[in-house]
């Protein structure tokens, strides 16, 4: 495991590169894209374990913190969705450089999945895209965060409208600017363009017709899409008084198996 900073010297991004298990060695890199906010906190240890399993399966693995998150440069109030998408592209290039590989798979959890689709849906060096419990609608996601923050079960989603609330708001400890909310407001996963032939797995921890229907939506554009439900407990967005980790091993193993099969070894 090699922790490192990459990107520009003014605004470096923090990442961890996990080299493959020497005996298996695949010529494929896997980039892991974290979710945001409290979900990132809860997922951190799971991503480490996930990366270790992938490296044992022979993959070169990289996980990284977006600008304004984790150990990367910047404050959360300076971050933008556009910048996060650029960061994913930058991390793919860094993984290819560090590992000396040409082919890459990208896995993203929750908002990380949706951003990964935007960032690499049309890259010709990305062969597999795994969307793990991805955010389908940015608008609903923002509303969900705002509801959690307010602690009001019946809060109106429109309270999250970036045109009505213009200030930066703290959502469960993390700043969400109006610019971020605006960008998310118009983000629909079903509307993201993915290149034909891209092997895409939508994997969810609870059965969801809306997620399942993405297979058809993407399939209509020639995407090689599939769906998998691995029933798992846990709410990524839950916040308790002390912080907690969630490590859903079955779903992690399912993704490792999918990538192992698709990369042919």
């Amino acid at each position, binding site marked *: 495991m090699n922790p490192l900073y990459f990107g520009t010297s003014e605004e470096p991004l923090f990442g961890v590169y996990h080299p493959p298990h020497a005996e298996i060695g695949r010529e494929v890199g896997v980039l892991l894209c974290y979710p945001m906010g409290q979900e990132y906190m809860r997922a951190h240890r799971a991503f480490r374990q996930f990366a270790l399993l992938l490296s044992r399966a022979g993959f070169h693995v990289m996980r990284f913190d977006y600008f304004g998150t984790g150990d990367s440069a910047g404050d959360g109030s300076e971050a933008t969705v556009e910048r996060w998408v650029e960061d994913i592209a930058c991390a793919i290039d860094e993984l290819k450089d560090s590992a000396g590989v040409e082919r890459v798979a990208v896995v993203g959890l929750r908002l990380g999945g949706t951003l990964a689709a935007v960032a690499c849906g049309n890259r010709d060096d990305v062969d597999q895209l795994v969307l793990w419990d991805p955010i389908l609608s940015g608008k609903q996601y923002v509303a969900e965060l705002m509801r959690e923050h307010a602690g009001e079960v019946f809060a109106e989603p429109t309270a999250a409208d970036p045109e009505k609330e213009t200030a930066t708001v703290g959502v469960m*400890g993390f700043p969400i600017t109006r610019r971020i909310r605006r960008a998310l407001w118009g983000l629909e996963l079903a509307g993201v363009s993915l290149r034909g032939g891209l092997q895409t797995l939508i994997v969810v921890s609870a059965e969801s017709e809306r997620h399942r229907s993405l297979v058809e939506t993407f399939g209509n554009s020639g995407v090689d899409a599939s769906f998998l439900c691995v029933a798992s407990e846990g709410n990524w967005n839950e916040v308790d008084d002390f912080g907690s980790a969630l490590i859903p091993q079955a779903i992690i193993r399912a993704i490792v198996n999918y990538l192992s099969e698709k990369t042919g070894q």
Partner: protein
Amino acid sequence: VKEQAIQFGKSAMLSGILADPTAEEVDDGRPAFILLNSGILHRVGSCRLHVRLARALSRQGFTSLRFDFSGMGDSETRRDNLSFEDACRSEVREAMDFVASARGARHFVLLGLCSGADMAHLAAAEDDRVAGLMFIDPWAYRTRRYWFTHYAQRVFKADVWKNWARIRVRRMLGEISARRPAQSTESVTYDVPKYVREFPSRETVARDLAGFMRRDIRMLVVFTAGMVDHYNHASQYRRSFPEVDFSDRLQVEFLPTSDHIITNLAHQEFVVRRVAEWAATVPVRTSPRSTTPQDTAATAALR
């Protein structure tokens, strides 16, 4: 930002971020800060508080290391059988050794929230290099005034009665169950060290604190409402240890509207500003206060 990803450690490879000062004038005698995990949250701290603290301290001319204890964040799990507390004490010492070796620091301020504060306390008790302690929600002990404040607040607070009535009406209407159903953790693995927070006796903590004061350790303590079952007014910390002569070495802040993990952005801002202000008041020391034997150099060099 002048930050470097590092790995160090004897019994397990520990990961951290070493942040160097960005201030133009840096005094060699200034202490370096060691930021400790809060519960099982990784080194960025609750709501990324440690990252913001480290960067504010850098601007003030301080070096800091935020790292993960073994089995947390990016650090490996230990293979020996040390208890969580013993492992943490050993790893805080290794972290200080590392910063001493890499940056020449001779004195340290240990900073932590909740279990991080507990570990900072334990580590400070056995290492004379510690010159300062910054605790958020450390062990606290109730006083008579605590109980008076506790009941007075409840009796005179309209919200308490409103809330009581609202909950009962909703229960009658069947909107909420009397008890929150326990969450299943069957398929969830908490692959992290076990730490059950138990408060030592007040006398034990008082004895340590008296020792800290004799060693001229400076302390900043912040309490949130997350500790309301143990702490409810600003002066309680001093009052609960009447035998300790804190003099002006102790500063206490109480945030009665903050939750334990400090999710409110204004509270986060306050803590960052307050720590940076306080850091400037920790006296510069030119040499160690004693010659307590320490483990020599850190085991790993900078990457």
